[in-house]
């Protein structure tokens, strides 16, 4: 009996063992993957939750927020805050919601101003910093490395230090409350941009340039027709980074450009601060306006994010 059973059993167990042996690595992989996905999902939730909470606050009724509601969906969901941020809500609606502000945010004017300021800064920085970076990377001139070291030290100076001297300079130039005044300190260069591009340019092989020189190309021509096209990715990255930094800039535009015609979005959000000494800021419309102000940057990142990641990977190739 046992003889007859044993052979029939062995193949079965063997098969099962073989099956499990074959299946095990697959199943292990699956568990690992599931774990990895779970961790990633968790991290994603942790990262995105504040943004969700911002959205939730933006869509809530201000009065409901005060009651301390902890629900995951917006309490008393309403679009009024968005309307108020865009200047589309009537005074009665706002008064009824208890979210009156002293000043108007003028959203679309501020948006236009932000776009003008950021575009000017980005264009200026990319052009001038790429030239400077190329000079530091390739041209030989006395004291080059010392000057570059000076640049690097400039990166370590907190912007607050230069705030007052810059303000006095811009004031004496008569550029207060003008776009050139807001753009001025960032237009020509920032040490970071020069440093960032120089590192990329150093990585471009000299042979290519030497070949161009043999063909009779001058420095300017090499820069324009060789270096720039080869560095499209890092230039895009720098442009996006510059744009985002410029968009989020608050202190400088507040100090030199806090008047109706030139006020940028970050400064315009001040309209939602405390209206009178004893009244707290209207949080819900403030969140709505902040969300709307962040939206263009989020869109920009969605469109160009992949290219940026590529560019950062590109830097590793050298």
């Amino acid at each position: 009996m046992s003889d007859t059973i044993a052979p029939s059993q062995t193949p079965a167990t063997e098969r099962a063992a073989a099956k499990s042996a074959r299946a095990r690595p697959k199943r292990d992989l699956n568990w690992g993957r599931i774990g990895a996905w779970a961790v990633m999902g968790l991290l994603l939730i942790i990262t995105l939750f504040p943004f969700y909470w911002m959205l939730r606050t933006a869509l809530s009724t201000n009065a409901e927020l005060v009651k301390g509601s902890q629900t995951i969906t917006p309490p008393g969901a309403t679009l009024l805050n968005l309307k108020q941020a865009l200047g589309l809500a009537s005074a009665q609606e706002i008064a009824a919601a208890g979210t009156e502000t002293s000043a108007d945010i003028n959203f679309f004017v501020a948006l236009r101003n932000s776009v003008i300021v950021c575009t000017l800064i980005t264009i200026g920085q990319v052009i001038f910093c790429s030239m400077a970076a190329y000079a530091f990377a390739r041209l030989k001139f006395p004291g080059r490395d010392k000057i570059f070291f000076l640049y690097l030290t400039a990166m370590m100076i907190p912007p607050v230090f230069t705030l007052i001297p810059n303000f006095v300079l811009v004031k004496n130039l008569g550029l207060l409350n003008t776009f050139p005044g807001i753009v001025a300190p960032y237009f020509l260069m920032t040490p970071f941009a020069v440093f960032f591009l120089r590192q990329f340019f150093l990585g471009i092989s000299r042979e290519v340039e030497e070949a161009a020189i043999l063909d009779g190309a001058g420095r300017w021509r090499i820069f324009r027709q060789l270096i720039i096209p080869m560095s499209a990715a890092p230039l895009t990255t720098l442009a996006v980074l510059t744009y985002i930094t410029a968009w989020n800039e608050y202190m400088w535009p507040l100090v030199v450009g806090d008047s109706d015609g030139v006020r940028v979005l970050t400064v315009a959000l001040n309209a939602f601060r405390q209206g009178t000494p004893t009244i707290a800021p209207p949080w819900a419309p403030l969140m709505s306006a902040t969300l709307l102000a962040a939206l263009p940057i989020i869109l920009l990142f969605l469109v160009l994010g992949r290219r940026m990641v590529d560019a950062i990977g590109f830097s590793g190739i050298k």
Partner: protein
Amino acid sequence: MRAGISLRFLLAAVATTMAATLAACGGGEQASGGPVTIRYSLWESRQQPPYQKCANLFQKQNPGIRIQLEVTGWNDYWGALPRGFIGDTAPDVITDHLAKYPQFAQSEVIMPLNRFAERDGVRANIYQPGLAQLWQTPSGQRFGFPKDWDTVAIISNGGMLQKAGLSKQQLDNASWNPKDGGTFEKIAARLSVDKKGVRGDQPGFDPANVAVYGLGLDPGSLTYGQTTWAGFARSLGFELLDKNPWGRAYHYDDPRFMATIGWWRHMIEKGYMPPVSDARTLGQTAMFQGGKIAMAIDGDWTLATYTTTKGVKVGFSPQPRGPEGRWSLYNGLADSIWTGTKHPQEAWKWVKFLASPACQNIVGDSAVVFPAIPEATQRAVAAHKKNGVDVSAFTSYLKDKHTILFPITEQAPQINLMMQPTLEKILLGSEQPDVLKSVNDQVNNLLKYH
């Protein structure tokens, strides 16, 4: 080649944008000839309509002058002004505050008005008693003519009083002392409800889980306690300064003051008053409107915000009676002229108009704030009455002469930087009221050695 084009394109883009920008800026600066524009700044949007009416009337009388009103929120307002003073972009005429003007006067960014007033025979004795003297320095320089005044009162939610079995009359007649809080603390306790529905005066009340606090808290300006301790401490006979205005010594170390601030902390610990953090982020008015507090101590300038609370009968009662009666801080605003204005004569004309019955009556009729001229005050009271709001709680202190003039000294911003955090820490429980002894010495040294 592609790169060449894109670079050229970029350069062209820069050039066009710059040109467009410069053109836009040039357009803004074309202002010569025609009427003189006087920029006038204020921080409260509710006051814009009455002052716009004043401006319209003024422009009719003075065709050569245009008034441009600029409204920014309180927080932003005091940040933007110094930037404007330094950057030469400040408004010609500013709404000024008693806590801020001594510093401005000292920095010579606002003008003494004496020579204008003497020339035009403008007198400072037409206002509610006491207000005008606050705008004059010890050397006799005047930096403003009073435009309005304010006091504070207890604002209550009628429905919550009723549910607690209390009447507004009981609140009107409430008494207070720092030892057991008097009937006022009993009312606040009764009005407090925890999340299980237990009231503050019942056994088992949980101060850590409160649904409705009996009394709100405005931790924004603890230094002078306008909407907190000022009236309470005065009802014990406490005086903050050795003399006011322009005192040389503060009395934060007075046992009566320490007892008052100690009572405040006791109210928070008992759960009858919200913790400082909640009170700050949510704000007293929003908590009242959201039904998180049953009573608030607030000034008449926020009156309209409270009365618009949906479905709530809002009542106003004077502050509770202490051993020396009922008291309120008495603050007032005025208009000052920036020294950098290009049109001082026109600016003065506007300031003179703002300080005159013609404008103050308009402001009174609008029932937003109480104007400084008694007759205009009466018009404001009548206008409120017409709206169904009884403001006698706010005016009662004037009748009894129980108003505390806003404390004015030099170094006010620096003193605020020391006192506000200290008092907050006491309310948070991380410091004992005893600390006031040493902090008061620091405050007085600041006055002595500067």
